[in-house]
């Protein structure tokens, strides 16, 4: 680290303050200051590397002298909490030195009066989120609000760049650049596999200079060894509770990461049952109410907690102080995310972070060892980002229309200057504009009710009152439909569960939320009412959560590991399991597909080891069972994991190669895709972002549901009457990458090239055995199931003693 001598470019008043704090600038912080004039700059630094200060030094320097009128620097982060945290940190030197700098944050939580005042008299530094920024540029007075803006700092840009929030932000910045041509951009990123791609996101197709901070020492990372063997299947890792508690006891503060909220809830519950010392342990995840999360955050900052059980909601930037251990429960699925999580420990520069991986089951031991090796080899994974999503562009066009009339040529020029939309053709842009203006239907029905009209060469809202509704629906975050959970009798909100989960509950069911067991009492106006339950065990396990697929790179590492002659890096029981699989069948290989068939308890099972990740294996299950239904093999259901799809039915599969042929899979896919539930879910998201469906309505929602109807109906109607509609194109593009993940199936087809090894066994194979215990079975709704439903209805009728009236 540099000494306390004067830093070129740093005003003495700031330099002195740093010296008094005993701080010295890191080299990358000085570098950022030296390049303050660069039109765009990306800083890659590990967690705890003083990224944010590096981003703000030029701003503080430029503002210290006073005299700047209006907004100078806009700071955008993915988390409201992060903006609030940064505000506190920045205000300290500003207040202690009496600098003439006003710093404020703005988010959905900011009061109405405060927001009005910020528009009339903007602060020098405004800290905000992509959604709040999009809202700001939708105002007619946006040119006045942003007058004088010099710099924009995008924090945690690696996280934003992975989602549509990043695309929306970059579109908003393209508008700001139009308003303030001299605007300089700075991106702050954690370690990523492809920094140049982030630079293009930030600065446009040409990219920008990238500064790399010293990555610091390698993390101290290992797999937790327990006396108890991990179970064959499941994600709870309950077996590891005593060992995890020992670790918590031995450290100051431990973060215990989980891949899903559901697993976090169950683990937290079990941890408390075993926590005989009453160690203060909290839980934090995105489904908990804001009050609950804030309480945990405050306790954490104050150092009152020894551990927090958490999910991705703690992946990002807030400084948690004294974390000295990160525990990852369950295989990390993705090495990049693992590295970023590990960075949460020892949030101090140049101290190694300490982390433990806890495999939840036997297969995850293999995954964890593969991830450890990848982490030590600095081999990060990630999928290249596709072209800019056009639903986000449609929303951007509507936002611009709220701000006032615009010329299509100008907007096209701005939009195609962003990295994500650099490849957008003019016809594609015009189709989005057309969608916003008329709906873009083949049937021209809305000539009288167009949303946008062209007057004197400029597009504008037909009815200016529409701006209110558009503004209320800004944003790209798609909460799956969730309903609030609160204690009956006006109790405090406990959190949220998915609507689908709420629908499965009947009165008296008990489930876990926020670490407590509650009893379902009823659904009242979109709120689940519960009471406290004395029961020891929740009847319904818990609510669903996002499941990440194992990355392509990590899957490839696992397949490569299988080819080793032996496995010294694996525990003996796991190595023995793989050896047995090799003896009775094969171990899967990257360039071939292993298919195993066996009979078990009266059903015929076939297992396809595609190693294509959970979503793609799920798609594969849907495709294969559909083909089996046609072939008369009466499939009854399947289950998919990250590495295999297991299908069961009434007839044995004699020739899987015929089912599994790449060309046929692709051909069947297109027709299958149209009717698929995943497509409907993707459509709902795209249609909401593009402004066809409104999440938020001006009045309170109507109580009856007669007025609302499912977006599935809109989807079915479009597929039937307007199959080439823009929204269907966007939906298809989206689903191929996301939930359907056909890209991973293509990758699997490409590496295996229809080379299939079919092994028929007289019993369950070692590798397939855990799949028989896997949760999340998908029934196949074929002719057989219809018959079962009719029989069930008849049984109910007979039970009720009713034949007919």
């Amino acid at each position, binding site marked *: 680290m540099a000494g306390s001598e004067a830093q070129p470019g740093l005003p003495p008043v700031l330099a002195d303050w740093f010296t008094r704090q005993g701080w010295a600038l890191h080299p990358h912080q000085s570098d950022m200051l030296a390049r303050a004039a660069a039109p765009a700059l990306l800083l890659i630094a590990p967690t705890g590397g003083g990224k944010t200060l590096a981003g703000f030094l030029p701003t503080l320097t430029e503002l210290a002298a006073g005299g700047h009128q209006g907004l100078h620097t806009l700071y955008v982060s993915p988390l409201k909490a992060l903006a609030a945290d940064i505000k506190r940190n920045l205000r300290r030197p500003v207040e202690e030195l009496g600098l003439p700098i006003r710093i404020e944050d703005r988010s959905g939580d900011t009061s109405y009066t405060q927001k009005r005042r910020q528009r009339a008299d903007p602060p020098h530094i405004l800290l905000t989120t992509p959604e709040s920024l999009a809202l700001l540029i939708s105002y007619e007075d946006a040119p006045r609000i942003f007058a004088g803006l010099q710099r924009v700092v995008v924090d945690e840009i690696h996280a934003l760049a992975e989602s549509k929030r990043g695309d929306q932000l970059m579109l908003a910045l393209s508008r700001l650049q139009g308003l303030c041509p001299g605007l300089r951009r700075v991106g702050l990123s954690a370690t990523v596999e492809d920094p140049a791609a982030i630079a293009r996101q930030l600065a446009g197709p040409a990219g920008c200079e990238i500064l790399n901070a010293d990555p610091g020492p390698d993390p101290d990372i290992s797999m937790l060894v327990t006396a108890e063997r991990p179970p064959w299947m499941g994600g709870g890792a309950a077996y590891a509770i005593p060992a995890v508690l020992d670790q918590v006891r031995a450290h100051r503060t431990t973060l215990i990461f989980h891949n899903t909220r559901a697993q976090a809830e169950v683990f937290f519950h079990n941890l408390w049952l075993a926590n005989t010392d009453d160690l203060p342990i909290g839980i934090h995840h995105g489904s908990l109410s804001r009050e609950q999360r804030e309480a945990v955050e405050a306790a954490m900052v104050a150092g009152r907690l020894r551990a927090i059980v958490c999910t991705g909601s703690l992946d990002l930037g807030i400084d948690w102080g004294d974390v000295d251990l990160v525990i990852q429960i369950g295989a990390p699925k993705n090495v990049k995310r693992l590295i970023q999580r590990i960075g949460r420990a020892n949030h101090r520069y140049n101290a190694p972070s300490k982390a433990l991986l806890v495999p939840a089951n036997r297969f995850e031991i293999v995954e964890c060892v593969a991830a450890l090796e990848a982490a030590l080899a600095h081999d990060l994974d990630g999928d290249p980002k596709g072209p800019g999503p056009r639903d986000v562009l449609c929303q951007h066009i509507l936002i611009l229309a709220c701000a006032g009339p615009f010329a299509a040529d100008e907007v096209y020029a701005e939009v195609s200057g962003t990295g994500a939309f650099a490849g957008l053709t003019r016809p594609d842009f015009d189709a989005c504009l057309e969608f916003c203006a008329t*709906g873009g*239907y083949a049937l021209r*029905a809305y000539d009288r*009710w167009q949303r946008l009209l062209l007057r004197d060469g400029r597009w504008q809202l*037909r009815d200016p009152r529409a701006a209110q509704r558009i503004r209320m629906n800004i944003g790209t975050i798609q909460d799956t439909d969730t309903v609030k959970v609160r204690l009956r009798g006006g109790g405090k909100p406990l959190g949220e569960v998915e609507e689908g989960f709420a629908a499965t509950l009947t009165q008296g069911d008990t489930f876990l939320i926020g670490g407590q067991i509650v009893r379902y009492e009823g659904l009242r106006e979109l709120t689940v009412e519960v009471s406290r339950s004395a029961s020891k065990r929740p009847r319904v396990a818990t609510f669903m959560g996002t499941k990440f697929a194992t990355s392509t790179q990590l899957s490839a590492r696992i397949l490569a590991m299988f080819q080793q002659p032996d496995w010294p890096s694996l525990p003996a029981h796991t190595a023995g399991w793989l050896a047995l699989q090799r003896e009775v069948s094969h171990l899967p290989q990257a360039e071939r597909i292993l298919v195993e068939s066996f009979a078990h308890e009266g059903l015929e099972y076939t297992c396809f080891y595609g190693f294509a990740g959970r979503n793609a294996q799920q798609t594969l299950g849907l495709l294969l069972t559909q083909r089996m239904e046609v072939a008369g093999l009466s499939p009854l259901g399947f289950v998919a994991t990250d590495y295999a799809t297991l299908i069961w039915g009434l007839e044995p599969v004699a020739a899987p190669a015929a089912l599994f042929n790449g060309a046929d899979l692709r051909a069947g896919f297109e027709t299958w895709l149209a009717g698929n539930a995943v497509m409907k879910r993707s459509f709902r998201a795209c249609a909401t972002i593009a402004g*066809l469906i409104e999440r938020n309505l001006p009045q309170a929602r109507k109580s009856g549901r*007669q007025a609302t*109807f499912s977006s599935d109906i809109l989807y079915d109607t479009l597929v039937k*009457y307007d199959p080439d509609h823009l929204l269907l194109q966007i939906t298809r593009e989206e689903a191929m990458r996301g939930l359907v993940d056909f890209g991973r199936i293509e990758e699997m087809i490409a590496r295996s090239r229809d080379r299939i090894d079919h092994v028929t066994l007289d019993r369950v194979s070692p590798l397939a055995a855990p799949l028989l215990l896997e949760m999340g079975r998908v029934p196949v709704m074929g002719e057989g199931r219809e018959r079962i439903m009719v029989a069930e209805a008849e049984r109910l009728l007979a039970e009720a003693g009713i034949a007919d009236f």
Partner: protein
Amino acid sequence: MNKLEFSFCGADLTALPSGALWFAAERLLCVSDLHLGKSDRIARRIGLMLPPYETRATLDRLAMDIGAFDPDWVICLGDSFDDLEAAGSLDPEDQSSLLRLQAGRRWVWIAGNHDPGPVDLAGSHVAMLRAGPLVFRHEATAGAEAEVSGHYHPKLSLPGMGRARACYLLDRCRLILPAYGAYTGGLSVTAPVLQALMQRRADVILTGARPVRMPMPRL
């Protein structure tokens, strides 16, 4: 077509998968809550431009049922149009499909709360109608006997069924039809208003590929 036959107040009736009701003795086909022109009304009122195909989709479905049974009578049980203005601004192509459906049979528009007045289309406009032992009106009335109505858009979701399906509701006095229109949401049969409306012993008939009859779930 998978149909479900049942008797109601002395009439032998058939529930069709689409949500239409066939009364063979009178050669009468009854559909409820078509809500034609709904996307037009939504665009006019709030500026959202939904896929403007719901009138076409609804009429296509109706054409299938009419083609299959060739009824003498078609009763539209109210809320046939999303509002009177939507009735006046039907697309010319939809108007001619409707005329083709009406040719050679008697067509009755029963008034609903969305379309209380007469519309400028062929067919007779009435508040209610009697046919055989049954009385047809839009909204169920207190103390009614042998009454066929619509209005509520009943639907039901069963565990494992996926999305909720529109359904018929049936007790000794009342038959409530599902909404037939393409863009119609539904009201769960567990809603208090439907629980209160139906007698203790009531049944549900689910629409869908195979209509299924079962007891009405009670809270």
